[in-house]
């Protein structure tokens, strides 16, 4: 009977504590996803792409502002291989969009350097950056990415780059204008972003780097779909 009372008291106190201290607890849930190594010591600013969008809200504003602080810096843009949307002419490439947006914000074209990655994931982006760091062993890079994606990016960089090169890359997290680590649970997008980034973090721990499937043009994709429908139709 006493044991039951103790268990009930622990449950009640635990519940009350969770209600009272939900904000620090939930902030703590976001902390492992975030790495902030923002520094003034950089000679390159690096932008990453997500699937079709830049990784990190207001990344062009921040990159331009960092460039103004250090006008001798180069802006590195990692670009994925062209996808079907770009090939279809429905959307400008990440390179074109980035050049346009940085140009509008006062970054001259000759201060922008394109790093081409072989695939559309963080590993390939880190490999593209590794090539640049090998060419410029003295270079120090400030890499901009989405806040909840920053720890994952740091982990991939540590994995791909040799330790000396990894130290020369600092990660600057960019919070989304709609949510950040202090209030992510108050918006649906915040919850979704946190969940997605936890899963990607988990994938990094469990799965590592995946093999890349062959890239298909719109024509190849169409042909394969029609073929699969014919095979599935009784």
């Amino acid at each position, binding site marked *: 009977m006493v044991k039951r009372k103790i268990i009930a008291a622990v449950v009640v106190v635990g519940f009350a504590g969770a209600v009272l201290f939900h904000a620090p607890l939930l902030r703590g849930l976001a902390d492992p996803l975030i790495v902030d190594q923002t520094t003034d010591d950089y000679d390159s600013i690096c932008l990453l792409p997500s699937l079709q969008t830049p990784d990190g809200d207001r990344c062009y504003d921040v990159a331009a502002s960092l460039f103004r602080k250090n006008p001798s810096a180069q802006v590195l843009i990692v670009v994925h291989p062209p996808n079907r949307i770009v090939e279809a002419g*429905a959307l400008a490439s990440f390179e074109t969009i980035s050049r346009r947006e940085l140009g509008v914000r006062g970054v001259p074209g000759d201060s922008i350097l394109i790093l081409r990655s072989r695939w559309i994931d963080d590993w390939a982006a880190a490999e593209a950056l590794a090539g640049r760091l090998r060419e410029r062993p003295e270079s120090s890079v400030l890499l901009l990415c989405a806040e909840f994606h920053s720890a994952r990016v740091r982990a991939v960089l540590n994995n791909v780059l040799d330790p000396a090169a990894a130290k020369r890359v600092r990660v600057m997290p960019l919070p989304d204008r709609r949510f950040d680590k202090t209030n992510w649970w108050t918006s649906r997008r915040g919850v979704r972003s946190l969940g997605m980034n936890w899963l990607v973090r988990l*994938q990094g721990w469990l799965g590592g780097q*995946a093999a890349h499937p062959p890239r298909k043009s719109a024509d190849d994709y169409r042909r394969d779909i029609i073929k699969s429908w014919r095979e599935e139709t009784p």
Partner: protein
Amino acid sequence: MNRMRRLIISLLLAAAIAFSLWIAYPYLLRAMARWLDVGKPPRRADYVLLLGGDQQTRPFVVAVLVNEGWARRVLVCESAPTPQSIDGILPPAHEISCRILLNQGVPPDDVVVLRGAVATTHDEAKTLATFLEDHPNVRVLAVTSDYHTRRSRWILSRSLADRSDAVSFVSAPTDYCDMNRWWKDQWGMRFVASEYLKLAFYLVRYGHLFHWLAACGVLAIVAAWIRRRQSVPGQTH
């Protein structure tokens, strides 16, 4: 002695389960991805509904359906503004989809944009429900990514109720990640594992009362069973 025997049996059982899981996990994980895909080969319809999201695959499948004569017109839901579209960095998602459709040979007059600034599949289902009220006798093919078809079907069937059989699902294969090894892939993990989380969320948020009652019932049965085991003399420790 009895306790020792039970401990050894428990350890052996746990080891057997762990070993089986270690052997079977690729098959289980592959089956998890396959379970999400409830798409079927297309059938003749009046409209194709393009569900918002992965534009590397979905609009291309919609264009194939129209070009191959499975349906004549396309429904695209107007998307809610994103930070990039607000800042003018990217066009709104539905505009990108429309551009892909036109580029792939779909006549502009056959693309119908349903107004409503949708942000979720649930919003799209409500928009389609409104459209079907005005067009009661049409058949619709809904196109979405393979991993998204099960949740979409569930959401649309809840929103459309007795009109849900007017809609059938066609999968757009996600060809830029290997779904047979999705847990090894950055995008595969985002798509498949998150889909299970979203399914759980949708069941809780939009699910039928029955789901809640069933869950409570199962919990009550488990609690009663544990209590009964603890109260039987000779079975307590």
